[in-house]
């Protein structure tokens, strides 16, 4: 009981103690009702540790509860709160206002995604392309058929793909990708990086089928290696490198 009241006190007291404030410009657009988009400005108090997501939630709590934003974990794990923050795709929960070094913070929905409302976008294309590359280990055998309980790997084998296993499917890489902006059929850096994650896994036997999926006219070859996907990844994944390594398989440099 005491713990609950303590948490409640914390939630109430956070914004009140601040001495600094910023102007938060929030993109507003409802495709079902609005003809065009607009920005609404709010003055929001912040501390050194205040994140952009907390500022948006502050707006929802005290100024306008109708602002649409998707969020969940608040610790850069769920990948829900991706948005354009001062023109760059970032996670709102992972971006501190104090780091932005600006008195005005502009938040917009991610590029290359259809808008549901305000800051919330549709993830269907991201999930479809992710599913398309078969994001799971493919093997003929299973541990149920043998006495073996686990598929052991050396640290070197793990090193081949572990970076790419950190993807949280936030969509920031797809949002930053210039090809995604024009090619509505492009597989995208997220799915391609995940294709590499499984192709490079020594336990997986589905390399050929995955390479066949991405080796089509809107597949891996439409990447122009701008590298913006790797620049914006909040988890340190390097999709651009994964794509180049995958190309190595298709060009015969890797096997």
């Amino acid at each position, binding site marked *: 009981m005491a713990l609950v009241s303590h948490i409640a006190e914390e939630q109430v007291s956070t914004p009140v103690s601040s001495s600094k404030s910023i102007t938060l410009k929030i993109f507003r657009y409802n495709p079902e009702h609005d003809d065009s988009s607009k920005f609404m400005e709010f003055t929001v108090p912040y501390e050194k540790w205040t994140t952009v997501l907390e500022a948006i939630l502050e707006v929802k709590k005290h100024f306008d509860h109708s602002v649409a934003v998707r969020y969940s974990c608040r610790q850069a794990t769920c990948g829900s709160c991706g948005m354009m923050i001062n023109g760059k795709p970032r996670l709102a929960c992972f971006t501190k206002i104090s780091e932005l070094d600006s008195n005005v913070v502009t938040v917009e929905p991610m590029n290359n995604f259809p808008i549901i409302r305000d800051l919330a976008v549709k993830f269907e294309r991201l999930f479809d392309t992710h599913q398309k590359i078969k994001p799971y280990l493919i093997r003929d055998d299973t541990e149920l058929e043998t006495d073996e309980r686990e598929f052991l790997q050396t640290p070197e084998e793990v090193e081949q793909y572990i970076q790419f296993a950190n993807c949280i499917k936030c969509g920031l890489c797809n949002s930053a990708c210039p090809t995604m902006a024009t*090619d*509505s059929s492009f597989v995208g850096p997220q799915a391609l990086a995940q294709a590499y994650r499984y192709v490079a896994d020594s336990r997986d036997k589905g390399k050929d089928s995955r390479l066949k999926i991405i*080796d089509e006219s*809107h597949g891996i*070859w*439409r990447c122009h290696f701008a590298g913006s996907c790797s620049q914006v990844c909040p988890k340190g994944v390097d999709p651009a490198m994964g794509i180049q390594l995958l190309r190595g398989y*298709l060009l015969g440099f890797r096997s």
Partner: protein
Amino acid sequence: MRESTIMKIHYGTALAAVALVAVHILMRLTTGFVESLEYENVLANYKFVPYAAMLELILILLAVHGFNGLRVILLELKQGRMYEKAVSYGCLVAMFGLIAYGSNTIIRTNMGMT
């Protein structure tokens, strides 16, 4: 044809074209640049079979590379089944058309028909 095969051809033609165009430019430098472009000299180049063969090869390499590049750009600009088919076949026809037109010029000049 698989996209990876097309792209291998795309990269291969680019590398080969760079090498052959370098030879072509070096040949221009064996005489003065303006002199090398005089009518008789140009005609002599076409009549020298190895050089004419190299020009033919450059024509094929650049046509294949260029039209595939154009196909890729157009596919990225707009999508749609009919549009993509039209772009792919259109580029293929244009590529063969350009090669036929250029080859006609090279062969006829080599045989002294102009």
